[in-house]
């Protein structure tokens, strides 16, 4: 496993935390502006990224316990682009805007996967984490569509039925689904590669080791037996850190 100069630099917890904190500060400012200009859908996403990213430092009560800044950056990318690049703020997004958005959703899914692995009794191998990311990204597009639709027909909001003809609304939604599918698979491949290059995302959260996450080495460990009896071992490994 070859470590480039850059990766050894960001393995430093303090630098990682500083970079992540910079992104989160930007997100906090962006969220305020989004609320002020009434862009509530995006404000919701921004706040969700913030909340997910702030779980480890609060759970560990240590500001350096931060998730990898590069994954947080990926999650924040559409917000950064919308804030900095003019034209991206138009409601009719381009396909590239959609792809960036759903890659960001995939990044959030990865952050959640790492947190579930570190802070709960859920344990994922890196392969399962990749499947989880792809599934969650695609499901998110479906849930988001249904939630907006239900809100429109029950509460009378105008998320989808905003005056456009119905077939235009539907086609836009279908392109959302297409983007979510491609972005989910793309992110899955990207993360698979990322895990292989430099695994152990959770190493930057103190107390999450000894095995770290996701551990390619664990996959090769001998199976408990030919009958495949349930394993009781992983629960005890981080018994002290699983604060539910």
């Amino acid at each position, binding site marked *: 496993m070859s470590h480039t100069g850059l990766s050894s630099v960001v393995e430093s917890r303090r630098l990682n935390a500083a970079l992540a904190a910079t992104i989160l500060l930007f997100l906090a400012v962006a969220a305020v502006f989004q609320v002020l200009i009434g862009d509530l859908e995006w404000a919701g996403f921004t706040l969700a990224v913030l909340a997910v990213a702030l779980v480890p430092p609060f759970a560990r009560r240590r500001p350096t316990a931060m998730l990898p800044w590069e994954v947080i950056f990926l999650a924040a990318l559409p917000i950064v682009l919308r804030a900095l690049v003019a034209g991206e703020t138009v409601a009719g997004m381009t396909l590239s805007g959609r792809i960036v958005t759903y890659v960001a959703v995939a990044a959030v899914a990865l952050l959640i996967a790492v947190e*579930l692995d570190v802070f*709960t*009794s*859920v*344990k*994922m*191998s890196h392969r*399962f984490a990749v499947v*989880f990311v*792809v*599934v*969650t*990204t*695609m*499901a998110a*597009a*479906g*849930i988001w*569509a*249904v939630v907006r*639709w*239900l809100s429109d027909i029950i509460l009378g909001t105008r998320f*989808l039925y905003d005056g456009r003809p*119905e*077939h235009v*609304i*539907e086609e836009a*939604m*279908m392109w959302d*689904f*297409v983007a*979510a*599918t491609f972005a*989910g698979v793309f992110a899955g491949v990207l993360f698979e590669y990322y895990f292989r290059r430099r695994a152990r995302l959770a190493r930057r959260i103190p107390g999450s080791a000894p095995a770290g996450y*996701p*551990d390619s080495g*664990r*996959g090769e*460990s*001998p*199976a*408990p*037996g*030919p*009958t*495949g009896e*349930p*394993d009781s*071992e*992983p*629960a005890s490994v981080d018994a002290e850190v699983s604060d539910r």
Partner: protein
Amino acid sequence: MRIRDLLHISERRQRQAARGMQLFLAVMLLAGLLLRHAGVIVNASIGLFVTFLPGILERDAGIPMDAGLALWISAAVFLHAVGTITIPGIGKPYANVWWWDHVTHALSASLVAGVGYATTRAVDIHSDSVSLPPRFQFVFILLFVLAFGVLWEVIEFGIGLAAEYTGTPGVLTQYGLRDSMLDLVFDTVGAIIVAVYGSTQLGEVVDALTERLAESRP
């Protein structure tokens, strides 16, 4: 609770019902070939293939498929195939019977959920590095089915675009926004049913899959 306890029908009757649906799909395929109707041929042949899956899985992969599971699988593809053909006096059930689409979606989504449940449970039992508590398992099945529902919509959309481009009638039809959204809602209903009752229905399948995993990666 198992399907047979719910329906109060004997295993023999269940096998007969599954066999009858299979026969219907075979006739439908023949009719489609005679009439040279691409949509009927595609829907009937895929359906017919799926009805043979339980037998193939049981024989070649050693995964136990009881009569209830076979009927469950056959019923889903049967309802779908019948929904696409025009019945005298009714028309296409998908378009003219209001509950057809919802029931078919809930049923086929429950199949997808069943596959998702059995696979993840087997991986959970087999793998040292994967541990999926029941509450996570429940959420994951819902996500899995919704992701599949989204993929299904993408496939329908893609076929629609291709049909538009080549000027041929589509194999699958999208009936509008409300319909797509209700599809996803009823997919979720099917997933919840499996997430709640799946463990009793699929226990033997999970055991067999776990054994297969243990054999393939000792």
